C-alpha cells in the first residue's frame, strides 16, 4: 500500500510512530496527483510549494511532540473557501486570479492544526450544480468512470479523495453538494447540522443552507475531520456555541436500540433499481446490527426541490450582487457604470449561475415575493415539521438513498436544468431542515459505479449519525474499494 492510499487515522499512526515523515507522505500524495489528475481534473490549483512547506512545519511540530489529529496530513479544499494569498476562484471567471487577503475560519483551523494544503478542488461554479460540469476550468471526471460525472457541486473534493489525491478533503453542501458526489465517487461525505461549522470564508451560495463538511475514505476519518473544523466562531453569528461532541469516541456505539425511519417518499419509482437494491441491502445490514426499522412518512418531500430552488436561488441572487467589477475580480471596462456592471457580469458568470440569478431575482422582485419566496419559506417550515414529527415519535435516524442514480454521463443532463435539479431530490430536505446527513458507500450500480446510503440525524446529533455509519461500514467492504486509474 502506498502512503497516498492511507486513511487519515492510518497516516496519523505512521507519522506518530515516525515510520514516515509528513514531507515523504506529502511527496507521495503530490506524485499521485501528478500521475492521475490529468485524467480526473479534480484540482483547480495544486499548491505544491505550500504543501511541502506545511509538511516541513508539521515534521518539526511532530519532532517537538506537538501533534494534533491533522498534523502533517495532506488535505484538499474546495475552491470556494478563502485561503489567504492563494487563488480562490469558485471555478468562476469572475473570480479568476482572486487571492483573498484573509483565511476563512475552516482553512485557518486546518492550518493551525498542522494540516498540509494539497490544493483547491474544482466545483460547479459558485457551488451551483450537481455534476461539476458547470466550471470555468472544465469538468471533473468520476475516477470510477472517466466518461461520467463525479456529482457536484463538490465533485473535485470527492474525486480527489476517491482517486487518493489527498487523505481527506472539505466540501460544502447546500442541497447535497457533499453527500451526492460522495455517493457517486464511493467515499464518505458528511454535511453537519446547520451552524455546527463556521461559514466565515466559505464563499456563499445560499447562506441559510450552506455548510462545510468532510470527504474521507472511511467513517473514522469523517469523525476526526469533522471534530477538527466544528465549533463556535466569533466571526459567524450563525455558528452555534454548543459544545462539540467527541465524535471519535461515539464511533463504536453501534445501532442496537436505535430506531431507523425508512421514509416511504424516498423509495419511489424513478430510482435506479440497482441503486435501490444496494440501499435495501444496507438497510438490512443496519437491522442485522440491532437497529429497529420503522416505515415513516415525510409527506412534504415532494415539495422539497421546488422549495429549495426558490430559497437557494433567491439567496444566491443576493449573494452574487457583490461581483460587480469594483473591488476585486473580473471587470469589463465600459463607458458608463451600468454598462460596466452588465458587461462584467455577462462575461464573468456561466450559464447556470445566470439562470439562478434570474430565478432568484424574479422570486424576490416586487409582486412575486409572497407567491414564491415567502411561500417557499413556509413550505420549508412544513418540511422541517415532517422531520421533527418523526424524531419526536422516537425515530433516531432516517435512512434513504443518497441519489436516485449512480454517476451519470458528462453532458447527459447539462441541457435540462430541471432534470439536473431533480437529481438532488433525496439530499435537499436535510439542508432545508438544517439537519446533519452522511453518505456512505453501500454498493455499486449496474454500471459498476458506486452507490451511496444516506443517513439523516437529529440536529446536533452527528455522533449517532457517525456511529450508525460506522456500524454499517464495519459489516461491509465497499469503502475499501478504489477505482483503477
Amino acid at each position: 500500500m502506498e502512503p497516498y492510499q492511507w486513511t487519515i487515522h492510518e497516516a496519523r499512526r505512521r507519522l506518530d510512530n515516525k515510520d514516515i515523515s509528513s514531507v515523504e507522505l506529502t511527496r507521495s500524495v503530490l506524485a499521485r496527483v501528478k500521475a492521475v489528475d490529468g485524467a480526473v481534473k479534480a484540482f483547480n490549483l495544486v499548491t505544491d510549494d505550500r504543501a511541502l512547506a506545511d509538511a516541513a512545519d508539521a515534521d518539526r511540530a511532530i519532532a517537538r511532540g506537538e501533534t494534533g489529529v491533522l498534523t502533517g496530513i495532506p488535505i484538499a479544499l474546495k475552491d470556494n473557501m478563502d485561503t489567504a494569498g492563494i487563488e480562490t476562484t469558485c471555478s468562476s471567471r469572475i473570480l479568476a486570479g482572486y487571492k483573498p487577503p484573509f483565511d476563512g475560519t475552516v482553512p485557518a483551523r486546518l492550518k493551525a492544526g498542522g494540516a498540509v494544503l494539497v490544493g483547491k478542488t474544482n466545483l460547479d461554479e459558485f457551488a451551483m450544480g450537481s455534476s461539476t460540469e458547470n466550471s470555468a476550468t472544465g469538468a471533473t471526471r468520476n475516477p470510477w468512470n472517466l466518461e461520467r460525472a463525479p456529482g457536484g457541486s463538490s465533485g473535485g473534493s470527492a474525486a480527489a479523495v476517491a482517486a487518493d489525491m489527498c487523505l481527506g478533503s472539505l466540501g460544502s453542501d447546500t442541497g447535497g453538494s457533499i453527500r451526492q458526489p460522495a455517493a457517486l465517487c464511493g467515499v464518505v461525505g458528511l454535511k453537519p447540522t446547520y451552524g455546527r461549522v463556521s461559514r466565515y470564508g466559505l464563499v456563499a451560495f445560499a447562506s441559510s443552507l450552506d455548510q462545510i463538511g468532510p470527504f474521507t475514505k472511511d467513517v473514522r476519518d469523517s469523525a476526526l475531520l469533522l471534530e477538527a473544523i466544528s465549533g463556535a466562531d466569533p466571526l459567524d453569528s450563525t455558528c452555534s456555541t454548543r459544545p462539540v461532541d467527541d465524535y471519535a469516541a461515539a464511533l463504536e456505539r453501534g445501532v442496537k436500540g436505535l430506531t431507523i425511519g425508512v421514509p416511504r417518499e424516498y423509495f419511489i419509482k424513478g430510482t435506479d433499481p440497482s441503486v435501490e437494491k444496494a440501499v435495501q441491502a444496507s438497510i438490512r445490514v443496519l437491522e442485522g446490527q440491532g437497529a429497529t426499522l420503522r416505515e415513516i412518512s415525510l409527506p412534504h418531500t415532494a415539495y422539497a426541490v421546488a422549495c429549495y430552488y426558490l430559497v437557494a436561488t433567491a439567496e444566491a441572487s443576493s449573494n452574487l450582487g457583490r461581483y460587480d467589477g469594483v473591488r476585486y475580480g473580473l471587470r469589463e471596462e465600459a463607458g458608463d457604470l451600468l454598462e460596466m456592471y452588465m458587461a462584467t457580469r455577462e462575461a464573468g458568470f456561466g450559464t447556470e449561475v445566470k439562470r439562478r440569478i434570474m430565478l432568484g431575482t424574479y422570486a424576490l422582485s416586487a409582486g412575486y415575493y409572497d407567491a414564491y419566496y415567502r411561500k417557499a419559506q413556509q413550505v420549508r417550515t412544513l418540511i422541517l415539521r415532517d422531520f421533527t414529527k418523526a424524531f419526536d415519535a422516537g425515530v433516531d435516524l432516517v435512512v434513504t438513498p443518497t441519489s436516485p442514480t449512480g454517476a451519470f454521463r458528462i453532458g447527459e443532463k447539462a441541457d435540462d436544468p430541471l432534470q439536473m435539479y431533480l437529481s438532488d431530490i433525496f439530499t435537499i430536505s436535510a439542508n432545508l431542515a438544517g439537519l446533519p446527513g452522511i453518505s456512505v458507500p453501500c454498493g455499486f450500480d449496474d454500471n459498476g459505479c458506486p452507490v451511496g446510503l444516506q443517513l439523516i440525524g437529529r440536529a446536533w446529533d452527528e455522533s449517532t449519525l457517525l456511529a450508525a455509519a460506522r456500524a454499517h461500514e464495519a459489516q461491509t467492504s465497499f469503502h475499501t474499494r478504489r477505482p483503477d486509474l
Partner: protein
Amino acid sequence: MEYEVVIGLEVHCQLSTRSKIFCGCSTTFGNPPNSQTCPICLGHPGVLPVLNRKVVESAVMMGLATHCAITSPNVFSRKHYFYPDLPKGYQISQYDKPICEHGRVEIVVDGVPKRIGLTRIHMEEDAGKNLHEGLGASSHVDLNRAGVPLLEAVSEPDLRSPDEAVAYLKKLRNIVLYLGICDGNMERGNFRCDANISLRPRGTTKLGTKVEMKNMNSFRFLKQALEYEIKRQGQVLDEGGKIIQETRQWDTKRGVTESMRVKEEAHDYRYMPEPDLAPVVVEKIWAESLRKAMPELPDEKRERFVSRYGLSEYDADVLTASRPLADYYEAAVTVFDGDPKATCNWVMGDLSARLNEAGTDIADCPMTPGQLGGLVKLIHSGEISGKIAKTVFADMYGTDKSAAGIVKEKGLVQVSDTGAIDAIIDQVIAANPGELEAYRGGKDKLFGFFVGQVMKASKGQANPGMVNERLKEKLKG
C-alpha cells in the same frame, strides 16, 4: 384656498461607536480614503457580518427614551441595489420588523405642548462615499464610511408646520445627545433628516401627494425648505395643478427646492431576510438594565428643574434644551442652592450672552459653575449688590479668581452699615436743597433721583435696600 400642512420626518443618526456595525474597523472621520476597511466591509467573497452590541443597546435606549415598544428577536433585511459605494450589492437594514415601534416625542411650540408619533426606529449600515469632483471620466469610491452604524427614526405625519418640524428635530437631537449615542454633528451629516411634506385643503382628512426632501443637515435649511415647499405646493394647487410625487433637494444658494432627476426605473429593492445574521434576542432583562443605566432625559430633567428649583416651565425648557447647559446649571446650583432662580437668570442671561458673543460652547465655558455659584451666593447674602455683581462677573470671566476674591481685592463689599449710609444720605440731602424742597412739596418722583445720588456717592456699594429705607426716613424731615 387654505391648506393644512402635513409633514413627517425621517431622521438618520450616526451612532458614536468605536467600531462599525458589522466589523471591527474604526468609525473615525477624516482619515485617508479606504484606510478603514477590511474584507468584511469591503464585501469580499465569503465574509459574514457580526452585529455590534452597542448598536443594539443604542437603539434600545433611543426606543425607551421615545416610549417605543422594543422588538425581539431582531432580524435584519437586505435591501438590494447596485452602486459602487455599496460593496455587497445590498444594504443590511431592518425592514418589516424594526427594533423600536409605536413611540412618541413631546414638543412645545409657542408654549403649546404636542405629541408627535414615532412610527419606528431601525438599525442599518451606512454606505461608502463616491467622489466625482475633477476626476474626468472616472469616479472614485472611498469605503471608510461603509458599515458605519446608523439609526433611522421615522415620525408619523403629525407635524403641521415648519416650526413643529424644527422643534421635533431639535428634540430628537437633544435626546440622542443626552443618551450619548450620537454626536449630533449636523454639518458632517452625522445627524440629518429627510422630510416628507404634503398639503391638503383644511378640514379634509385625505393625505395629499407628498414630496420627499433629502438630506437636510441644518435646522435653518429644514425650515426654509419646508416654507418654500408650502408656498410652491400651494401655488401649484391653487392653479389647479397636481403635485408630483418626487424627491426634491434644497438649493441653499438659490433658496429654492429642486426636483432631483427621476430615475428611469422605479426601485425594486427585493428586500429579503438577512440569513447571515442570527436573530438577536433582546431579553427583557437586557432592556431593563439599559433603562436603568440611561441618563435622565430632557423631559424628566425639565420637570425636575421645575419641581425642585422652582423654575418656570420656560426657564426649565431653555436650560434642558442642551445637556451641557443643564449640567452647568446644576453644578452651579450645587455650589450654592440658596437662590436657584437667580442662578438660572445668570446662566441664561449674562453668561449665555457672553458665550454667544464669543461663539463659545457652554461645554468650553471659561467660567466654572463654582465661580458662578459663588457670585450668586455673594449677591444673595447681600455682600454685593446686583450692580456690583455685574462688575465682578466681568472681572471673573476668563480668570480662575473667585467672586469673593475679586470683591475683597477691589474692596467692593456692600455697605450695609446704617451710620455710614446715613452719613452719605445727609451729604446728598445737603447738596441738593432745591430737590429736597420739591420732594417735600409732593414731587414723589424725585425719590429715584436721591437714590441714584446716594448710590453714586457710595460708588454703588451701598446696600440698595437700606438706602431706600433710610432715605424715606430722612426725606420726611
